[in-house]
């Protein structure tokens, strides 16, 4: 009889030990916080990239006039020397800088004129459609192997563009006038199989106005 009691008591203790170790409680906030840590934070990545990697080297961007002349005379060399892209394909991006005079202010772009040798040329600064991968890819500073998912590097582009739309464009759009001198840096997209140099659009990274 005593043996039976001991047997049952031991079984109950074993059951309690197993049950205790099988179940545990955690607050929902803790679990949410832990999973949030694991998720890729595109906004933080974009801010760090923009401020700590892209901006310090922005002066090393190629002069747009020199680049476009090289693209015309020796496209292979121009693409090989100055273009970047995270993926493969015909679309490549260039980090550029330049200066000129505001010639017209449109709904979606601002037209800049500049002198190339003795000829007056024009290009557009995007002021509305700041989307896509131009800024992310143009510097060549981001390695695709840093990302596990396609959506992560898509989100990096979206967040970088958001910085430009919220921090770079508002003061330019509010203060820029026709006739103002402007220094700019930014990214351009060119299709190496179907080159079109008639319409160059710069996605801006910096825009510095010098009033008349």
């Amino acid at each position, binding site marked *: 009889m005593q043996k039976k009691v001991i047997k049952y008591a031991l079984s109950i203790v074993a059951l309690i030990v197993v049950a205790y170790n099988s179940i545990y409680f955690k607050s929902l906030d803790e679990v949410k916080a832990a999973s949030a840590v694991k998720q890729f934070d595109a906004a933080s990545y974009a801010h760090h990239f923009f401020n700590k990697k892209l901006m310090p080297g922005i002066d090393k961007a190629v002069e747009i006039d020199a680049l476009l002349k090289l693209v015309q005379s020796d496209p292979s060399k121009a693409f090989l020397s100055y273009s970047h*892209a*995270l*993926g*493969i*394909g*015909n*679309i490549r991006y260039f980090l550029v800088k330049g200066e000129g005079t505001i010639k017209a202010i449109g709904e*979606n772009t601002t037209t800049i004129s500049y002198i190339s040798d003795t000829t007056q040329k024009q290009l557009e600064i995007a002021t509305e*459609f700041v*989307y*896509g*991968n131009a800024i992310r890819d143009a510097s060549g500073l981001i390695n*695709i*192997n840093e*990302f*596990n*998912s*396609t*959506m992560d*590097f*898509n989100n990096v*582009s*979206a967040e970088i563009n958001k910085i430009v739309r919220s921090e770079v464009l508002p003061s330019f759009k509010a203060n820029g006038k026709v006739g103002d001198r402007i220094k700019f840096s930014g990214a351009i997209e060119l*299709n190496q*199989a*179907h080159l*079109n140099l008639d319409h160059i659009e710069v996605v801006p990274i910096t825009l510095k106005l010098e009033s008349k």
Partner: protein
Amino acid sequence: MIKHFPQPFLLLLLSLLIVTSSCKNKAASDQPRKIAVVVSTLNNPWFVFLAQKASAKAKELGYEAKIFDSQNNTALETEHFENAIASGYSAILFNPTDAEGSVANVMRAKAAKVPVFCMDREVNTTDGATSQILSDSYSGCVAIGRYFVEKLNKQGKYVELLGLVSDNNTWNRSKGFHSLVDNYPGLKMVAQQSADFDRNKAMEVLESILQANPDIDAVFCGNDAMAMGAYQALVAAGKAGHVKVFGFDGAEDAVDAIKNGKVEATAMQFPQVMAETAAQYADEYFKGKREFPKKMPVAVELVTQNNVGDYIAYGKKDEGK
């Protein structure tokens, strides 16, 4: 038992064994490696093109290649993987049937040390395939989104026809499009429905949507087959020419429709680039390379009435590679 055999006889037997075994190894090493091309379906010309180009590139690189048709059936896809592994295929160039459902097959190949290179469609795991070479659908649809906003002057009502809801490409395209278009409150999406990437279904779905929303200005479709189906529905409703249609893929009929002004734009994918890159990666793997990008996006190009002359179906123009 062995001790009863005369020693010279044992030595002779051993030598014969070594010679025959080395002959067999030599014969095996003389055979070219085999590459399996497992494709989701051969009922769609786009995937036929993808499979043929992958197979052709593998052969050009000196390998045997065979195409397996999964007929959009993951069970059949599993059989193909099992057969390929059992038959000694050295690599699989893979167009998955289902982002989630195909994961097990990729993991099966990985366990058998057979590298898998995904083409065009992805699987929802980052450690299964050696590399996934995929159209940059999201960015392609950002470009379409911009053109869409410009053509509609930032105002209007529109319908979105989605592809297969289980396919990642469906959502990458939709998200890319909305990442831009949703910033314009003047553009109102009155309906968003799946038509499974199917032309006939797209026609039926849009006909039904038009009953409740006869005043739409545009239709954005997740592929060109649906764009063509949508256009047929608009013709039947007498609205062709008034409602702008946008597709994705770069299929032959859509490129022709852009030339004829029936469709506004598509996003050109490059199946040949994806197929040939996958075969090239397999070749590099056999030669000892082990570091490959887990996901390699292939740029997608916006095709409109302004530049359609630069393109033909599937971006086949030589200079487009």
